[in-house]
């Protein structure tokens, strides 16, 4: 599919967050919902912005009964440990949902950014039923 067609196929949900150094957005694509992170998450307290964003994404995914969401890290240069806590928060929200309505987090990483797979490996050990690495 051409880039133009792919853009047409993706529809914005209006669920997004961003500051000077990073942004994230939930979009609906042909393969399903995708949350795409870009930039560098390294502010003093990323949870102030990221946790409400994660809550909004979670509510949207539960409402639409999505079986999984792709969490695309390929354009995320770095995430500090405080930012990483937003994903722990996400898993906690997910674990509050009954098993039948629970979706999975499918992380996509960049081979050039080796920290991503290592960080997410730990997250997948923390929540093996909720986290997948593609």
């Amino acid at each position, binding site marked *: 599919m051409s880039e133009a067609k792919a853009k047409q196929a993706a529809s914005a949900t209006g669920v997004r967050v961003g500051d000077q*150094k990073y942004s994230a957005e939930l979009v609906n694509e042909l393969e399903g919902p995708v949350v795409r992170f870009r930039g*560098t998450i*390294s*502010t*003093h*307290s*990323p*949870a102030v912005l990221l*946790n409400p964003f994660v809550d909004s994404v979670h509510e949207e995914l539960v409402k639409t009964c999505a079986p999984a969401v792709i969490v695309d890290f390929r354009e995320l240069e*770095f995430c*500090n*440990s*405080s930012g*990483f*806590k*937003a994903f*722990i*928060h996400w898993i*906690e929200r997910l674990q509050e949902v009954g098993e039948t309505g629970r979706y999975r987090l499918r992380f996509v990483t960049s081979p050039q*950014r*080796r*920290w991503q*797979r*290592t*960080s997410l*490996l*730990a*997250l997948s*050990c*923390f929540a093996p039923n909720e986290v997948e690495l593609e």
Partner: protein
Amino acid sequence: MHIDSGATRDPVMLFMRMASPWVFIDEIRRFVKSFCACASPGLDREEYLALAVHELMQNAVACSGSQPVELSLEIDSASDRVSIQVTNACTPEQAAALQERVDRMRQEPDALKHYLAAMAGTSPSERGGLGLARIHFESQLGLEVFFEAGHVTVQAAGKLALPNANESRVSNV
């Protein structure tokens, strides 16, 4: 900043002293990554060493106020060692809390188990609590704390050459 690189097998050292605001830590991480790639070519350690510097610097800047923070990095290929030291002003209470955290880490020989326990015990809405465990598991460095004359130094040190496959990181740590 002072960079000292002698013969190729001599230790390579980097020393920085700064009173920098938080936003510059990203630039320091990028510089350290590039520096480590140059100092230890082919070992694929630079991302993990830069990650460790980033987490230590953020901890230091957060509690040092307007006081300078010092970073010292030594890469010794001949003895297969890397050492990162970050020093900042802090109160005895802050140093004791840091020491207690590192002591707890050293009681658990499995770095992944400690990291998972830290994840389970952390408050997702507050900053702090994961960085040292992350360094221990992801960067595969051991941690020590030294406190003297109102300044704390956190040292992260370990082997320079490591198998980077994540599978071995989980099974060998």
